């Protein structure tokens, strides 16, 4: 090992922080541009959706259990279950499903 692990960690921390802090600290004003405004409005939904599927099927030991959790999660969220309720229901259904699959 030629390189120092602590220097590696320091670089990781510094670069991670710079990426996160630059936009948040530099953009102080409300963005007026309609395109940018719409873009930033849509970004969270697209990002979260992209990250959820198909990743949820890889997170579980059996992809089918992940898929069932996805469907259950969508249904519960549609009927206004809380954030906590949806998460816990997804965990429980995976735990139960994997006994059978």
């Amino acid at each position, binding site marked *: 090992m030629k390189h120092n692990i602590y220097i590696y960690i320091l670089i990781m921390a510094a670069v991670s922080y710079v*990426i996160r802090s630059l936009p948040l600290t530099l953009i102080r004003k409300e963005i007026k541009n309609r395109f940018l405004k719409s873009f930033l409005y849509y970004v969270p939904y*697209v990002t979260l959706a*992209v990250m959820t599927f198909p990743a949820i099927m890889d997170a579980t030991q059996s992809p089918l259990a992940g898929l069932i959790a996805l469907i259950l999660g969508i249904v519960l969220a549609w009927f206004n279950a809380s954030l906590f309720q949806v998460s816990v229901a997804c965990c429980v259904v995976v735990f139960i499903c994997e006994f059978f699959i």
Partner: protein
Amino acid sequence: MNDRKTENRIAFREGMRDGIPIALGYFAVSFTLGIAARNAGLNPFQGFLTSILCNASAGEYAGFTVIAADAPYIEMVIVILVANARYLLMSSALSQRISPETKPIHRFIISFDIVDEIFGIAIARPGYLNPFYYYGAMFLAMPCWSVGTALGVLAGNILPMRVVSALSVALYGMFLAIIIPPSKKDKVVACLVVISFISSYIFTKLPYVRDISGGTRTIILTVIIAGLASVLFPVKEVQNEA
């Protein structure tokens, strides 16, 4: 002044409440992250340090592979930039949710923990974001994340796979709870969610494209899909309540 304090305390508590599923999921994910850290040659303290300073799953995984390869420092810089580039977008989106009255120091503290999950719950709050809501979630999430990593280094495979498997969907359940309710109200958002699911799936299956890392895939698809939607369906009013 006292009103403000009470308000902050309530926000902090709500942040903690919404932070519980995040912390649970983090614990499971960081545990497996710790196993990767151990394989890269880190001790439990180094694993803890990395996690409390970086707060990034994909970024840390990528970083550990660099450490394992004993690669040049500059390579670490590039890998972390690419793996965490999506936070640039999230940070920009969050910047629009912080009241001009909020002291600048809060922006620096929030920046420390801009992660997919807390960003998700913060953006789901109506109106301007109270920084203390964010801190409430950080207060639970950060210790779970870093201690989980240290335990992962220490104990390796002690947690049964079945439990890890179940806990790891907590994060996705939370994402669903964030994106589905707005889809009921806004048809464009509903379509975007479906399109995002489909294209993300296609991206993981298609030859060549499937080799793209998860973080980069997220950036590419987000920019394309959200960009097209902004051109075709620009938002009319200030929609601060998502």
